């Protein structure tokens, strides 16, 4: 896990009250494996936007499934800017 990936895992762990950080893998599916519900997703988006200084649309969120997807999305967005 690189630095950005670690930050993403930290934020997801912060949101998901019942999930231990150790159980979050890069290939974990955020909804299916980690049990995130809609409020958790909105909460994560708000935290990610704040942490990485970007905006994520609801359409973009729909394409994201795994923790790795989140990290990749942020990395690409950072490259683009």
């Amino acid at each position: 896990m690189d630095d950005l990936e670690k930050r993403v895992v930290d934020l997801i762990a912060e949101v998901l009250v019942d999930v231990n950080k150790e159980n979050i893998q890069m290939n974990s599916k955020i909804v299916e494996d980690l049990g995130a519900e809609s409020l958790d997703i909105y909460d994560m988006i708000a935290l990610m936007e704040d942490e990485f200084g970007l905006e994520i649309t609801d359409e973009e969120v729909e394409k994201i499934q795994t923790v790795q997807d989140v990290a990749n999305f942020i990395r690409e967005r950072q490259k683009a800017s």
Partner: protein
Amino acid sequence: MTRTLREHPNSLEDGVGHRVVVTGMGMVTCLGSGVARNWEAVRSGISGIGPITLFDASQFITKIAGEVRGTFDVKGHISPKACRRLDRHQQFALIAGSDAIEDSGFTCPPEDPYRCAVIVGSGMGGLQTIESGVEVLQTKGPRKNSPLMILMAVINLAPGILATKYGFRGPNFGVVNACASGATAIGEAFRIIQSGRVDVALTGGTEAVITPLSVASFNALRALSSRNDEPEKASRPFDADRDGFVISEGSGMLVLESLEHATRRGATIHAEIVGYGSTDDAFHAVMPDPEGKGAYHAMRMALEDAGIGPEQIGYINAHGTSTELNDKMETLAIKNLFGKAAHKVPISSTKSMTGHMIGAAGAVEVIFCVSAIKTGTIPPTINLENPDPACDLDYTANKAVSRNPEYALSNSFAFGGQNASIVVKRAG
């Protein structure tokens, strides 16, 4: 003063009244966490008031308050992660509520969850959350507010969160009644059990409004003490040198249940709730009626409800805010209702030590009434050094006394004119 009392104490007019007992209690205040610790502090006359640390109060008229300090979640009821999603008033409610449930020994989730209610009072709910949300809106624009804002701001989430935690699926609501919120919640919980609609209620009040907006606004009303150099002496009910109330925070929660239900499961009964009266002054937005008619009638209704006369009350936990208007009005109302007995009954304002917890005050004070009955101790009104000549009753000045009250009366009076009085009776 004579009046007709009902023949059957504690029975509703339709004859189906259930007796209602207290089986669980919990609290967190500026004096610490837990009923035992708080009771030890108030019977010893210790003040919990100190400098405001929750925000920078250097530019404020009032720089003191009764803050809940340190690790208030002594038993670890809420994980640090879960705290992120809970406003401070919700955290207090969870801690006091968990302590009350634990104390009651009631098995949760309940077998009959639709007969278990949660009714929680709060004056202003998640005000701190709202203040932070407004700041985000103004500095970062309309797309940056947290999705958690609403859940942390609204008052009905405290009872909602407790219902989820304990599986109570019956009636559930917040009570918004300013300084009478906690007492009103307990009164309504008492009624709903008495009427037979539920068997158990988790009820009380919670408040966390030591915030910039709240302190600045209460200052604008000239309602708060600014005795900033002597915080521990700032809350001085019935004293001529008082200069306003001292804002504080915390929560008090009780498990109430029908006597049948409590007996069936072999619960320890702390005390019985036997009377509730509620009125409004219909007088002014923030000033109490100086003649105290609303307060008088709230107390009268509570006593009639209990089926007792004033001379049977062995302790009054006064609203006693340490404002001139309240203290004089309350004294007058007690004199008018109690007649000769007014000068015999021990009275005290525990707000002299806890400060004024707004929506949590009434709940914490009903618990202090239970403790007074159980221990045979009347807690003092501290800082009563130079009594206001208009306040000439026995306020248990500065030192606890030993008495053996069978009945205690708790008063709560609100901005808005709402008044709530609760009568507590010794178990048995």
